[in-house]
């Protein structure tokens, strides 16, 4: 499972980087979105990969009043990834607005605001 996750993050990130380096704003924003997916997945797996383990402590999970940490997934990366998703989404949305504004003002969707001379 580790290999699958690692490869998928790598593919997402790699495609994202390639798109960000393209000259059109639409490609750039698509690239940013792909990178943000990759990064979110990356944060998520930093709490290690678990199967069938809840991130919350349940009443019947207590052993002598203490928590057996081995039974639970790490909740912190899950909380972090939630924040990261929200912030990444908001800033990317903001970029979308700027991108549309730029298209309207300069009449081109080139990142430099003018077509490169061919």
């Amino acid at each position, binding site marked *: 499972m580790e290999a699958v996750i690692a490869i998928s993050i790598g593919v997402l990130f790699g495609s994202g980087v390639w798109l960000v380096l393209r000259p059109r704003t639409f490609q*750039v924003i698509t690239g940013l979105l792909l990178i943000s997916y990759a990064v979110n997945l990356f*944060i998520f797996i*930093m709490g290690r990969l678990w199967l069938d383990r809840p991130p919350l402590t349940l009443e019947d999970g207590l052993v002598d009043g203490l928590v057996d940490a081995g039974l639970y997934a790490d909740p912190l990366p899950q909380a*972090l990834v939630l924040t990261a998703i929200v*912030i990444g989404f908001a800033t990317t949305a903001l*970029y979308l607005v700027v991108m549309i504004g730029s298209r309207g003002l300069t009449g081109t969707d080139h*990142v*430099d*605001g003018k077509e490169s001379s061919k």
Partner: protein
Amino acid sequence: MSLPWMQHLILAPVLLPLLCGALLVLISERHHERKFLIDLVGVLGLLVVSLVLVHLSDSEHWPGGVGVYLAANWAAPFGIVLLVDRLTAVMLLLSSGLALASLVFAMTRWSRIGVHFHSLFQFLLMGINGAFLTNDLFNLFVFFEVMLAASYGLVLHGYNSMRIRAGMQYIVINLVASFFFLIGVALIYAAAGTLNMADLAGRVSGLDADELVLLKLGMTVLALAFLTKSAMWPLGFWLPTTYAAASPPVAAMMVLMTKIGVYVVLRLWLLVFSDGAAAGFGFDALLWGGLATLAFGTIGLLASQDSGRMAGYAAVISSGTLLAVVGYGQPSLIGVALFYLIGSTLAVAAFLLLIELIERIRTPSAAMLALTMEAFAVEDAPDEPVGVAIPGALAFLGLAFAGCALVITGLPPLSGFIAKFGLFHALLNPGPGEALGRITWVLLTLVVLSGLAGIISLMRFGVRTFWAAKDVTPPRLQLTEVAPISLLLLLCVLLTVQAGPAMDYLERSAEALHRSEAYVERVLSEPVVSRIIEGDRP
């Protein structure tokens, strides 16, 4: 038992701008005087709070001069910790002073050419102050994003095609840098299992070899994000363009934003890598990166004709000097470096405000404003500003320009000279038994050369503007435009006159930075406020 109210002051630099900003969103743009007043009250409040914090952190009020605020009363490694020590307090003071100047400058013109200037300004302050205060890496990310989101809005403020082009590149670069920030944070968490900076520093020595590699990797990726903000070569090509395009009050605030990168590197690196298992990691990279930045800024400054870009390259030079000095890794240098940071921030900010006034000599018909209005269809264009115009406009512009130039290039008698002199003195006296390396001479030469480039470039600009121009029409200057620049320059003068006490204070802050063990101990031992639960009461 409850917390003494003084303790809540630590939270005030974040809370106050948040509340003011939220309030300002609700008020219509038509009431710009009212909006300005609220904004001003918020900034003045911040100034008072930061003065109190500077005083408290240097008195015996908190043990070791470190005030710790446990958010939501969670004990240290589990909850988010806000922290004030001397360095934080000084940076807060710098940010509120600079904010006051920018805000007053923006009053007559710039805050009226678009919407929500004042709210964004307050949110920017919230982000900046939060980044100074926090002791938690993920919380730092959140405050960085608050700051950046506000700065995206402010860079685009007064929407024209030049700004939107520069703004778009600025946003993409910072978005990518933020993703790197997240990757770095995730790697550090994977390695050390904590995001609290103090806890992280305490755990470094207990990590095994694999985890240490992961931690170093994480810190490197994280540093990429900060170094993009502080425009280290080759991550800083966005800076001159963005500075030249942004409206002057915003550009002045952005000078401070480049210093935040330096601040975080300083704090984090000295905390985690000053001693212990991974001592000295990355200092060389900072040093060489700083030197490259210094060289890049010097060449850029010599090459640029446009005044906005000149200011941008001056900021790059100041970043480069600071990074190189931090990377040099000599404890006695840090205090002077902080002195340099304050002086150069004030001077570059003053210069950025000043060049807009100087441009009016060249284009008396306020072409700048026309340029701004070209795209942004403001319903009621701001009237020709009413206010007190000051006499002797040209004399003021000339003197203020000379003052900025003196501080930026480091010529006597202003604070720039003291800072550079202190740097050279500390570099050439490395302490007993240590020889001067070749790298010392490279650093010294580059700093001197950058000063020389500054002199040539600024003199060329000054001569061309004030002496060689054919018909100089004295521009009409408002009191609210002159006062902020005077304030910033007066602060530089004050820093010169009171160099002794200021330097002592900064030396103490630098010394505290190097006692990472005491810092870790202090943060982790902060007691939570005990709650009295009904049933427990005797």
